[in-house]
């Protein structure tokens, strides 16, 4: 990492990418900023409003509830998915045809379009035609995701665990695979317990990938949209309405340009802050690990 050559002509290699990403990131972002400080009434009637929209968004109690709900959701799924993912990675077969088969099976949920994930769970949990809904009803549990907000929450959490635990498991699996066999042999000579092997050999190797896993999972869960939209539609009431859905309703449904633009900016800034924290953590860890270069 440190033995890179200083060469500003490298900008030429980056340029095509920069043009493309700028087209799809900077121009739209400018539009959003533009809207967030104006009141657009018509093509030629727009007034500068300053920070008015920001005030109204920050004081909107429905949005504040959605924000709390969002944080709660992201923390819950992280608390379940990270340990579960590590556990699965530890018991996945290392070689042979079984390893390939398990790999393909485990990645399967990641490759399903997000709205189809919602449809799958909508079907699966319905009381009349779904295996899970029907089964729970037969067991005498009054389970209904369109009426009971607790059931809706549990189902969305279960769906997200089903959908995204494979990502954590795959990341951990790749981290585990990079541990040389000699480490395990040394541990066997020391007659280290399973727990000691995990604690002092496997977990330290996993920290790097785990930071990436937590980062990706936090980000994706923070912008979850399609799955709960299809499964519960944000209901019952607004008990499962998360930030992206509130924003989409405001921007597309109600066409409230100003407030939704202000909302977008606040939303984006929160994500930016968190990703900056993670990014600096990753960079520091790479620096500590490889003081003499190499990735």
């Amino acid at each position: 990492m440190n033995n890179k050559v200083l060469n500003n002509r490298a900008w030429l290699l980056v340029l095509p990418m920069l043009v493309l990403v700028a087209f799809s990131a900077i121009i739209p972002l400018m539009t959003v900023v533009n809207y967030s400080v104006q009141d657009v009434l018509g093509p030629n009637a727009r007034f500068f409003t300053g920070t008015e929209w920001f005030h109204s968004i920050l004081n909107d109690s429905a949005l504040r509830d959605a924000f709390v709900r969002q944080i709660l959701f992201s923390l819950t799924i992280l608390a379940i998915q990270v340990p579960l993912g590590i556990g699965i990675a530890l018991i996945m077969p290392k070689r042979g045809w079984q390893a390939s088969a398990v790999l393909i099976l485990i990645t399967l949920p990641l490759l399903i379009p997000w709205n189809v994930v919602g449809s799958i769970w909508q079907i699966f949990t319905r009381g009349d035609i779904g295996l899970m809904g029907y089964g729970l009803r037969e067991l005498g549990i009054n389970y209904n995701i369109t009426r009971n907000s607790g059931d809706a929450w549990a189902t969305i959490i279960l769906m997200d665990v089903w959908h995204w635990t494979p990502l954590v498991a795959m990341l951990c699996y790749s981290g585990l695979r990079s541990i040389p066999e000699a480490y395990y042999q040394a541990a066997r000579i020391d007659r280290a317990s399973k727990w000691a092997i995990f604690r002092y050999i496997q977990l330290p190797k996993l920290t790097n990938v785990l930071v990436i896993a937590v980062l990706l999972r936090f980000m994706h869960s923070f912008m979850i949209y399609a799955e709960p939209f299809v499964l519960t539609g944000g209901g019952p009431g607004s008990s499962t309405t998360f930030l992206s859905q509130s924003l989409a309703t405001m921007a597309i449904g109600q066409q409230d340009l100003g407030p939704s633009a202000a909302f977008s900016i606040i939303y984006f800034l929160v994500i930016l802050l968190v990703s900056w924290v993670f990014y600096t953590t990753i960079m520091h860890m790479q620096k500590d690990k490889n003081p003499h270069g190499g990735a």
Partner: protein
Amino acid sequence: MYRLDNAQQGEKYNTIFSRTTPAQRRKRNARSRFRARFLLGLYLFLMILPIYWLINMSLQTNSEILGSMTLWPKNLTFDNYIGIFTNSSWYMGYVNSMLYVALNMLITICVALPAAYAFSRYRFIGDKHLFFWLLTNLMAPPAVFLLPYFQLYYSVGLFDTHIAVALAHCLFNIPLAIWILEGFMSSVPKEIDETAYIDGYSFPRFFIKIFIPMIRSGIGVTLFFLFMFSWVELLLARTLTATDAQPIGMIMTRTSTASGIDWGTLAAAGVLTIVPGILVVYFVRNHIAKGFALGRT
């Protein structure tokens, strides 16, 4: 050699000093391995169950789905699939999705390869800031960009075309591709570049003839991830299309008619969206583990 000796010594040491005999230990190992297999099997079973249910429903008629609870199709029928493959408004959804995913993969890989090379080999003014800015795009919630995208692509006349969706998906796919490719490229020793330049290779020739073949597996894995994230995204794809380039995910919402939801067709369409993913993951199965760690293990 050394390792082997160590292991053998360890074995001897264990046999002499431990109270458990090798046979007992082997038995205990076998038991824990069996327990691991059992837990893994249980997880896989629970994971497959919702997908199995979808497949199960796709092979039934609507009257059977609604009429009784059947764990497997009693009267096997492929009508739902035949219905999709004979109706152009249905199968065009798949064609549209495939088209914009393929376009996106092509555009992304072409611009990401040189950029990732620059990040992995050179220092230049603003490189760290640029990299972080790229990552922020990966983190940007698509919902934030909904409205501006709609207006932007509408105003440049790209609305409802495949290229519009492909370009929109570049927003998160280019940063992802650069992140993964940079990891794979950094694991190739720099000496290879230097030797090639000394041998008189120009940069483009070296890059195409030597470097790209060396990171083949990395490129394969990157393409897999590009496919994955473009294929599963629907919010942007739905917003930027109306009729001509509508993705399959959007067409699936059409199954609810006045007479209720056509569950069989919905399930069959859902199953068909899973198939391309299985095909793609099969091709990269040997490198996929490294790819998930962004080439950095």
